[in-house]
């Protein structure tokens, strides 16, 4: 795919976000999809490509009344939607379809029509991790952090600062679940979940969804919204078992996906005006900043504490408040993409002035997968 040859022409989240017990999971997909279709001035019947995760593309296409010629059910966790955008751009470029709908819906909090969460006891994780008391992402995703901090001489205060800065962004966002300011002391005094992680360093748990519509850049100019061009993309996977991650100080999937996205976009780090790094937990932006090459190894903590990513900083990051304060349905990647699109369109609730290039970086599973998208309002 040539940089800028495919564009996002529709983007929306569910009308309601947070606690939405009166909608089932499939209806959250549909609510987001109908909002994104309205944003693009389209009907479901105008769509010929469907991509989703969690629920299947079959369920989503059927429910919305779509007859696709291309589907993608890549499901690698919360960054699946980054991979869908990448695959959709390739499919559109190859002529497999013209107009792709990517949907996310998840009843993560209310669990209405949600999918079961089970670890098969005969799988590798079931045999070699589950018997040791792992109990959801807070007990697994956090395991590398003591090693990460020790090897870098970094502190728990620096880790806490990630949550503090993101709450500052959330305070500017009326749709954020949590908006009240917090301090490092508040974070370190909050309820212990899995030492060294306190509740304010763990993502919120919500219901909601989002959807994107992509088409060729040549067609994009005929749509009502200003096109958001896909400049570059990357993806990778590492391991489904956090204990088997090669390096507890760095994600191989992050490095591979990020490098490829920057290379294919043909951009330098200094070209980036806005950054999203999927933050299911407070350490992810630290890993992301280092693994994407925005800072050197061990520099991420100081970079955050120096307010580079805060409102007014030189690299505004997670400007919706992130998974820590805005929303986190379970697969947050769609919401990171939505915020990048809004910032590039100039329509975000906490808009950064003059955003031209946004990098949106996602994680799937517990450092298991990654996807990175570079987008811009300028076609190269």
């Amino acid at each position, binding site marked *: 795919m040539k940089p800028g040859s495919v564009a996002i022409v529709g983007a929306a989240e569910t009308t309601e976000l947070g606690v939405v017990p009166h909608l089932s999971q499939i209806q959250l997909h549909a609510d987001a999809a109908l909002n994104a279709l309205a944003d693009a001035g389209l009907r479901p019947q105008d769509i010929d490509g469907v991509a989703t995760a969690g629920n299947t593309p079959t369920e989503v296409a059927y429910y919305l009344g779509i007859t696709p010629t291309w589907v993608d059910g890549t499901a690698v966790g919360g960054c699946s939607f980054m991979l869908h955008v990448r695959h959709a751009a390739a499919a559109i470029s190859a002529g497999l379809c013209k107009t792709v709908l990517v949907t996310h819906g998840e009843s993560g909090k209310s669990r209405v029509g949600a999918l079961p969460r089970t670890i098969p006891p005969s799988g590798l994780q079931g*045999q070699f991790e589950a018997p040791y008391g792992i109990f959801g992402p807070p007990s697994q995703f956090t*395991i590398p*952090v003591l090693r990460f901090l020790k090897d870098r001489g970094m502190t728990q205060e620096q880790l806490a600062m990630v949550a503090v800065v993101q709450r500052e962004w959330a305070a500017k966002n009326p749709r954020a679940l949590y908006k009240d300011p917090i301090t490092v002391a508040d974070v370190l005094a909050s309820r212990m979940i899995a*030492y060294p992680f306190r509740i304010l360093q763990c993502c919120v748990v919500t219901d909601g969804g989002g959807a994107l519509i992509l088409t060729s850049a040549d067609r994009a100019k005929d749509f009502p919204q200003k096109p958001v061009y896909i400049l570059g993309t990357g993806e990778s996977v590492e391991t489904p078992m956090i204990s088997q991650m090669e390096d507890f100080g760095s994600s191989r999937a992050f490095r591979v996906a990020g490098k490829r996205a920057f290379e294919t976009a043909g951009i330098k780090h200094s070209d980036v005006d806005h950054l999203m790094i999927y933050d299911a937990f407070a350490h992810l932006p630290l890993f992301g900043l280092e693994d994407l090459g925005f800072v050197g190894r061990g520099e991420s903590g100081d970079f955050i504490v120096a307010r580079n990513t805060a409102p007014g900083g030189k690299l505004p990051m997670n400007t919706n408040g992130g998974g820590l304060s805005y929303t986190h349905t379970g697969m947050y990647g769609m919401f990171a993409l939505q915020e990048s699109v809004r910032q590039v369109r100039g329509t975000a609730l906490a808009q950064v002035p003059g955003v031209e290039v946004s990098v949106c970086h996602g994680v799937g599973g517990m450092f298991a997968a990654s996807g990175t998208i570079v987008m811009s309002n300028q076609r190269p």
Partner: protein
Amino acid sequence: MSDLPLPVPTPETKHFWEGTRAGELRLQRCTACEKAYFPPRPFCPACGSRKVEVFKASGRGFLYSYVIHHRPAPGFTPPYSIAVVELEEGPRMMTNIVGVPQTPEALRLDMKVKAVFAKQNDEISLVHFTPEAA
């Protein structure tokens, strides 16, 4: 410990669970590239060779990283450690650190640990680790 989600061995992992039942930590090693690896599979993940052998590991390693879980989970009473140990032979594995207070002060990164085997039933014994000094 009756609620604990116990493993169900497969043909490829059977030797490991037979080992723990016998009080041995059994790893695999590639005879082509010499690399030891875990979790079990009948080929080398480093080079793809099927020429691999099972061997008895020393059971010694060091505490690589951990969390102390503060919420209840089936079969566990909080607070309890969920740890990753790096074995002398190279591979890492998830475990619980036992025989020591479940506190940051007692659970020092890089401390030397050794394997102990916790019988769950006639088929399954889990591998836990305890400080070597203890």
